[in-house]
């Protein structure tokens, strides 16, 4: 169980993390979302005492700095490639293991587990980003900890690697461990996370389960399909619904599915489909964090004289 209270960090005039408080429960994967520059990495660094700021984070009731052999309690992956270029991957882990009374056999075990057994004696400077992330996960798992903090662990992984990472984290969560993981891959997070902490500009936007987040930040829509839905569209608009024609269907917002079905029935309209379209996590994320995006890029425009259809 992670319990963060009043986390606050200021860089001169910029408040990076603004009094964040949240709990991360064991047994589930908790996703940590926010736009670029929203303070996710700073929050994780504050939690581990790497950055100085205000607030307190307790890992199963203990502050990180007071844990005697922390790798056995909390595993962390915060930065890609934090390795000395001339020290082998295995020796990098042996060094960290030595400070936490972890046997060398465990080093070999985690290297095999993350798929780097064949290259464990090579120097990580030759590793791809994906391999470095696997080594980072091996480092986090070294002490077989009950809590994992992972910052963008799927960065640089190929689709197989992402799938593997998802399975690993879900399995570890199912063993009762506390998993707190940030990612920009929202589709991946939708498959992986059970709960979410969503921040924007250092402040809390949402803390709860994924379904509630999607429900809270998006409008559910009803899809109606039939041979002749024109009269139904008029009836729906008369009830105050927003109706968007889409190919051979109507997409209805602002009315519940039951009400739409009742209107179709009372209007005598034949239906081939009446279903709810659930918004994606990405749509909910865009809706929730749109106003708190710190670095806003321009919308691409067609080049002058170019073919707009190209």
């Amino acid at each position, binding site marked *: 169980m992670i319990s963060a209270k009043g986390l606050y960090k200021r860089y001169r005039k910029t408040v990076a993390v603004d009094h964040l408080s949240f709990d991360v429960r064991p047994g589930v994967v908790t996703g940590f979302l926010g736009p670029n520059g929203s303070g996710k990495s700073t929050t994780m660094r504050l939690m581990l005492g790497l950055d100085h700021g205000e607030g307190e984070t307790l890992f199963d009731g203990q502050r*990180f700095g007071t*844990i005697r052999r*922390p790798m056995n309690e909390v595993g962390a992956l*915060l930065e890609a*490639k934090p390795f000395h270029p001339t020290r082998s991957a295995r020796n990098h882990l042996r*060094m960290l293991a030595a*400070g*936490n*009374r972890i046997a060398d056999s465990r080093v070999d075990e985690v290297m095999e587990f993350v798929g780097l057994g064949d290259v464990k004696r090579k120097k990580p400077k030759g590793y791809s980003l994906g391999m470095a992330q696997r080594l980072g996960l091996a480092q986090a798992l070294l002490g077989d900890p009950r809590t994992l903090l992972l910052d963008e662990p799927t960065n640089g992984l190929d689709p197989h690697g992402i799938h593997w990472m998802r399975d690993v984290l879900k399995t570890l969560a199912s063993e009762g461990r506390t998993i707190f993981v940030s990612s920009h891959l929202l589709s991946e997070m939708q498959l992986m996370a059970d709960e979410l902490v969503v921040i924007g500009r250092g402040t809390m936007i949402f803390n709860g389960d994924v379904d509630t987040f999607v429900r809270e930040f998006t409008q559910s829509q009803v899809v109606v399909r039939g041979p002749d839905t024109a009269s139904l569209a008029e009836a729906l608009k008369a009830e105050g619904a927003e109706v968007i024609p889409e190919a051979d269907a109507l997409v209805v917002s602002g009315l519940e599915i039951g009400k739409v079905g009742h209107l179709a029935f009372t209007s005598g309209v034949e239906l081939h489909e009446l279903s709810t379209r659930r918004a994606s996590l990405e749509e909910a994320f865009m809706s929730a964090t749109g106003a708190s995006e710190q670095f806003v890029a321009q919308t691409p425009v067609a080049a002058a004289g170019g073919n707009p259809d190209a």
Partner: protein
Amino acid sequence: MLDALRFEWKRLTTLRSTYWLIGMGLLVSTGVAVLVGVAARNEPVSTDIMWIALNGGAGFGLPFLAVFMAIIGIFACGHEYRHGTIQPTLTSLPQRNRLIIAKLAVVLSTTLVVTLVSMAVNLGVVYTVWGEAPGLFEDPLGTSLIGYVVYMLLYVLVGFGLGLLFRGVPSALVVIFLMPLIIENMIAGLSTIPQLDWLVPVVKFLPFSDGARLLELSAPDFGPGTPDYDLFSRWAAGGVFALFAALILASAWTLFKKRDA
């Protein structure tokens, strides 16, 4: 604390640079002893010859071995920041005081052992060439050799502090070589110009020059026409260098505790 010591020992011994820096230092230091032995083999061994052979020519300027060991001292913390390993290090050992104490203990004890090994090897060269080592434990040679060991430890301590202070390697390397070789020599040289005689009282407080006096065989003689610098005695001058090292280390340590990793 034992965990931190284990970590730091593993950190030091899993770096290739540790071995070649120590190897180079020992090789150059022994090379000087061999060179002196070959050149003066037909002369009776004097205190001066013994002094040069045993400290590997350290009295001529910046000791070779000190240079290489100071680089190891700079790497102890400088590498952590240069390669970003400070983050896994502090998630493995979050107690910052313990980490620094362990780093200091390992680097200084390694320096002590390497220095003593170097002196022992060089003594072997002296015995091989001359079959005797007169006055080894007597003043001034014995005192000078103790001063050499103290100098080595203080010089490495300065390197360690600079690596931690600058959180990197290049700046620390520049300071630790630029100060003794250029800046302090320049200040001493400028002080001989009558119009700049206000620099004369400063010379006795130049830290690296004071440190070098720890291993001197006799008080320096700058020749006729040079100002009277009223230099400190060997151990008082060593005290100035020690104070300099302590100031750098204290500043670096305080900042290390306050700064974000």
